[in-house]
């Protein structure tokens, strides 16, 4: 899909295209959320003597989330460079 093709779409089609993008991004955000929870839970929580997280586990989870988000950011950057800037931001 190249820019010139997008430019020649009708207004209705452009709106549909925008809606589609929004839907895809929303689905991806939700998937990211679930992926993060699963990944960080698996890596940080190993004991079940109590039903609440202890300080160590909580810190681990927070660091895991931050690290993953930074990692995703960097991957995005490189991907855009390699891909010629057509990838969606965020």
């Amino acid at each position: 899909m190249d820019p010139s093709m997008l430019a020649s779409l009708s207004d209705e089609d452009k709106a549909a295209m925008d809606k589609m993008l929004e839907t895809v991004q929303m689905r991806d955000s939700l998937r990211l959320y679930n992926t993060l929870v699963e990944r960080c839970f698996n890596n940080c929580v190993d004991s079940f003597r109590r039903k609440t997280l202890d300080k160590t586990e909580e810190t681990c989870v927070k660091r895991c989330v931050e690290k993953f988000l930074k990692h995703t950011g960097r991957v995005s950057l490189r991907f855009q460079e390699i891909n010629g800037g057509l990838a969606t931001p965020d």
Partner: protein
Amino acid sequence: MPKGGEEAVNMAQQEMEFRVDMFSRLTAACFEKCIGRSYKDSELNVGENSCIDRCVAKYWQVTGIVGQMLGGAQFPGK
């Protein structure tokens, strides 16, 4: 169906898929954590039951933490 109704169904579908996905991952994670692989017995024992209860509670807590860090407002689920 009028445009507005279609939009509502789409959003509801996204939310539903999200919840189903979360439940699926939660179930798999706690099975991995709590149920040993030798499968000596087909019934869940007391230890496994407690582990599952606590695992679900902890997983849910992690869900809340991650939700906050990702910017609460845009993510559904309570």
